[in-house]
């Protein structure tokens, strides 16, 4: 098992290196430093200033190792990313790491409740639907899921802001305040929207999983042996369903990241998603590539963790 973990880790490192190379291609060769500088400094700026800016931001070097082995952007890019030295934002010269630190809290205060509530509501609901299968509740449930999935998240956001925020005046239309007493009222709307847009797919997925697991042979065998229903459910169905659920939750990590991008931007939550959105608007490539890197890194780590935990959850998984 130790060897498996090590192999898995090495592979993860390989993937991260691959991601970084892709980033280099996209953000250094396709968009050139000159453009980045021009965008950052604006129209009214003379060329000397642009040159100076490129020096300040370390863009004044050749791209590839074969142009200059000691001083090139490729090696520099790898070195800086892997040591978490993200440098300065292209848009406002502030250290990116500071902004990530500042944005982490607001982001997590939105995404963690969203993820937890999504599971807490999604799994019971899907069990409910699975339980009432063959009845109108099941059919309606599935139909509602497809319905919920077919609405663009933008419509949800616009609708919630207009209806709940403007017309009914229940909650602030947007904004953020880290104060614990103030925080909830800002989070209600984005969480409702996030849940609405995600719940359909979740419920439909969990429902399938539960149905599949509860009709397996070993469940029937256990039942035939006279095991009590709670025991069957907790020891057989739920435990076996954990793998797909876990996989889905891990897959949801980057989804939260990107989903939060829209929610944060629309609802004015100053988190990482909001920061990414600003970076897109401002062509802040330094921030953008950092965020892509962090997103990929968190995904890879999450996946490694899942792969390893499979072994504990499901004895059928062998470490090959």
């Amino acid at each position, binding site marked *: 098992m130790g060897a498996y973990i090590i192999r898995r880790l090495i592979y993860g490192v390989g993937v991260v290196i691959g991601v970084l190379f892709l980033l280099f291609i*996209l953000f250094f060769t396709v968009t050139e430093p000159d453009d980045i500088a021009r965008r950052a400094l604006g129209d009214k700026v003379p060329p000397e200033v642009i040159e100076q800016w490129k020096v300040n931001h370390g863009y004044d070097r050749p791209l590839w190792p074969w142009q200059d082995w000691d001083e090139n952007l490729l090696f520099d890019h790898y070195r800086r990313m892997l040591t978490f030295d993200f440098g300065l934002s292209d848009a406002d010269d502030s250290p990116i790491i500071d902004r990530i630190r500042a944005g982490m809290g607001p982001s997590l205060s939105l995404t963690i409740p969203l993820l937890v509530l999504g599971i807490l509501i999604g799994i019971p609901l899907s069990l409910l639907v699975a339980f009432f299968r063959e009845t109108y509740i099941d059919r309606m449930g599935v139909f509602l899921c497809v319905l919920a999935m077919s609405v*663009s998240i933008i419509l949800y956001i616009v609708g919630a802001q207009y209806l709940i925020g403007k017309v009914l005046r229940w909650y602030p239309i947007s904004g953020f305040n880290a104060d614990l007493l103030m925080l909830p009222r800002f989070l209600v709307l984005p969480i409702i929207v996030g849940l609405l847009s995600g719940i359909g797919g979740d419920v439909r997925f969990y429902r*399938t999983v539960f149905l599949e697991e509860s009709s397996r042979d070993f469940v029937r065998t256990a039942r035939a042996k006279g095991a009590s229903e709670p025991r069957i459910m907790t020891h057989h169905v739920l435990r076996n369903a954990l793998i797909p659920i876990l996989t889905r939750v891990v897959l949801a990590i980057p989804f939260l990241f990107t989903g939060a991008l829209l929610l944060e931007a629309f609802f004015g939550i100053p988190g990482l998603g909001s920061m990414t959105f600003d970076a*897109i608007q401002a062509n802040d490539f330094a921030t953008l590539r950092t965020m892509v890197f962090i997103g990929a890194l968190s995904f890879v780590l999450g996946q490694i963790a899942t792969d390893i935990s499979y072994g504990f959850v499901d004895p059928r998984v062998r470490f090959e």
Partner: protein
Amino acid sequence: MDVESYVVSNSVTLGLVLACVWVARVVGREPIWRDAARQLWSRRRLAIVVVALYMTIGLVDSIAWKGGIPEDVVDVLPNAPLTLLDRAFLGTKEASYSAPFASVEFYGAEALKRPGQHPFGTDILGRDVLYLSLKGARVALLIGGLTSLIAIPLALIFGVGAGYFGGRFDDFVFFLISTLASIPGLLLLIALIMAMGRGTLSVCIALGVTSWVGFCRLTRAETLKLRELDYVSAARALGVPELRIVIRHILPNLAHLIVITFVLMFSGLVLSEAVLAWLGIGVDGSWGQMIDGARDELSRDPIIWWNLSASGAALFVLILAVNSVGDAIRDVLDPRTLKDSS
């Protein structure tokens, strides 16, 4: 030589129609597929009709030719190619339009007019909202279709290749998939589009690059399984060329997966485009763009609701219909799900 875009569009449309006819004939010959189609029709009649309607609209909007425009229509450039749909809507301008520029009402119809003479009202430029919503059908089909045309072959080539031949190629493909899959989808999309520049094609390519990964993984796993089947091993032992094995034995067994993925992917792609439109990097004339534009009108007083509702509803109905057809297709074609949900 500069080939006019409408010529390309017409030929592609023709090609697609022919391809559809061919597929229909092939399907008609195979009893399994025929049975599946019949089952599908009996389950999701309404949804299929809706999808067919959208496709017809898209088709009508894809056939364009030059000339034949009445003299008094000023809104159109001389010699511009117009589609069937454009032509159908040429006559629906405001009555005052017959005396253009007398009082210049945005060079044509009146802006933000309530539904009435225009069934769904007009937008801020005085364009008919119904017309724009219908035009969106072609864009949506283009996004979904073109992207699938990029993503599915890519996934098949890499997935089947990796699964069947294994070895180094498999390692490479697996690494490529893992790398692409580990980047959050929306970010990868944005990065690609910003790199390639705006436009329908680059949006489709970016969507294709981000969406082929999942399917590739599926085909790879499935091919791995198929390769070990007795008749495939037998064929290999008999010395049948590898390519022939792949085409005769592997691909047909993946066909149902292709169909399911295509339908399920389609709705995801169109919804993704709506998000991209909001970020300002979507496709021109898409519903996403219309929603994005209409979003602001919502806070006008008196409220301008027809704009948002028309585009939102057009998008929603198509996605709902496609999702519902997709579900049914999966139920019909994929025995595993079939077992659970009948």
